[in-house]
């Protein structure tokens, strides 16, 4: 199969003509082709921090935990996400909902601790798929690079949770 429609088949048994064997015409032709690129083709470079490529609607970036329409945390610490996580990077500690926090949680159980080790996470999105409460999503934030401080990569519930009415504040 030819790689593209412009590919030409050469009959290898055919002797090259004298002009072909001079190579100079072919070289000049090639030089004009590169010059065409030099002068007329626009660079494809996306100058990253200033320009960004649009991301796909189902892009899987950093995790975000959602609240329901009444502003309560959706997550009920069912462990489905932890169970399905292939990288085993989710750590949940469940606790009973009592007293004051009742109006903050729809059910009797909630996640007292909910951590994701980002360095182990492979951003597969299985947690998002597994969640029966639509509580965890991988959203568009992807600039996770950092140096020095690895403790930043232990994502806590506080960092992931939407505050009421406001989008999640991403850490840079």
């Amino acid at each position, binding site marked *: 199969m030819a790689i593209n429609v412009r590919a030409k088949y050469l009959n290898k048994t055919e002797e090259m003509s004298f002009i072909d064997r001079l190579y100079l015409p072919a070289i000049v032709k*090639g*030089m004009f082709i590169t010059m065409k690129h030099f002068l007329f*083709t626009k660079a494809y470079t996306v100058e990253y921090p200033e320009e960004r490529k649009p991301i796909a609607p189902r892009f899987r970036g950093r995790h975000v935990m959602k609240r329901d329409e009444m502003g309560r945390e959706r997550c009920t610490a069912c462990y489905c996400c932890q169970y399905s996580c292939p990288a085993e990077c989710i750590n949940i500690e469940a606790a009973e909902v009592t007293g004051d926090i009742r109006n903050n949680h729809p059910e009797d159980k909630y996640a007292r601790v909910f951590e994701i080790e980002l360095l182990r996470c492979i951003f597969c999105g299985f947690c998002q798929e597994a969640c029966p409460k639509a509580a965890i999503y991988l959203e568009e934030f992807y600039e996770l690079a950092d140096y020095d401080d690895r403790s930043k990569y232990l994502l806590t519930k506080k960092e992931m949770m939407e505050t009421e009415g406001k989008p999640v504040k991403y850490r840079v």
Partner: protein
Amino acid sequence: MEEWIIDILISLAKTLAFFGVILLWAAYITLGERRFASFFQNRLGPNRAGIFGLLQPLADGIKFMMKEEIIPKNANRAFYLLGPTLFITIALIPWAAIPFGDTVVIAGREVKLQIVDLNVGILFMIAVSSIGVYGIMIGGWASNNKYSLLGAIRSSAQLISYEITMGIALAAVFLLSGSLSTRDIIIAQMQSPWHWNVFVQPLGFIVFFVSILAETNRVPFDLAEAESELIVGYHTEYGAFKFAMYMLSEYINLITASALITLLYFGGWGIPFVDLGRLGLSVNLAGLISVIVFLVKTGFFVFVFIWIRWTLPRFRYDQLMNLGWKILLPLALVNLFGTAVVALLV
């Protein structure tokens, strides 16, 4: 002031100015090469340091200085350090004989814009640049690395083979100008563009151009470096400033090659159809214009070298040797013979 003091001062000033210009230029070719390469490949290239990336060579220089100096354990220490030093020294020496422009008048005396006007200028340059292979050979051998050694061997074989064709192609030029002095060769081409050696000696020019491309170790003859096969050949084991020295000398060689092409085949500082001497300009202004013309022409050929690099693929080793010995050498000989016959008859 005594006469000789002025002479020495002028020589010193010329030397410093020359080397300053050459080193600066070579540093900026590294930027030019990278940016032009990007344009050929529809990219942007380094454009962050300063406007258009103009401070990039400075940043690179600082980076090279700050890096750790590593000498491989089994390398031959003395020769390992000698390699790049020798290479850059030899790369700079030919500039003693290259004229940048016509004459100017300083302190009441005529000063040629050339460090020395040797009567065997071209011969001197070829002789010196042929020692350059030792810089490569020593560096490649002393690093005690198979890729370095292979690169060095390839490079020396290539340089030796192509020097012969280059020399013979040049002999035809000497026959026409009747002199080995760079200045005389330029002046012999001054009358009109049709006296430029590129039109008088088209075959010789092609042979010379291909040979000098091989002499500078540039694509398509970069077998000494051959990133894909030999990592980078003879300077694989070099890092930090020693690598920078090799890199810089290669670019200096590139400028030397372009300057040679300009002065041997494209009329040096002559402007087509304009006679600077008859325009009634002051001597210094005419001198300045001649320098600019020379630099522009040389710069153009530097660009052509870069252009070729991003167009052509690398030769195979046997193809390289075939081209050198079986095609270019006979062509150069035919050219020399034809020129000699014509020069005798006319």
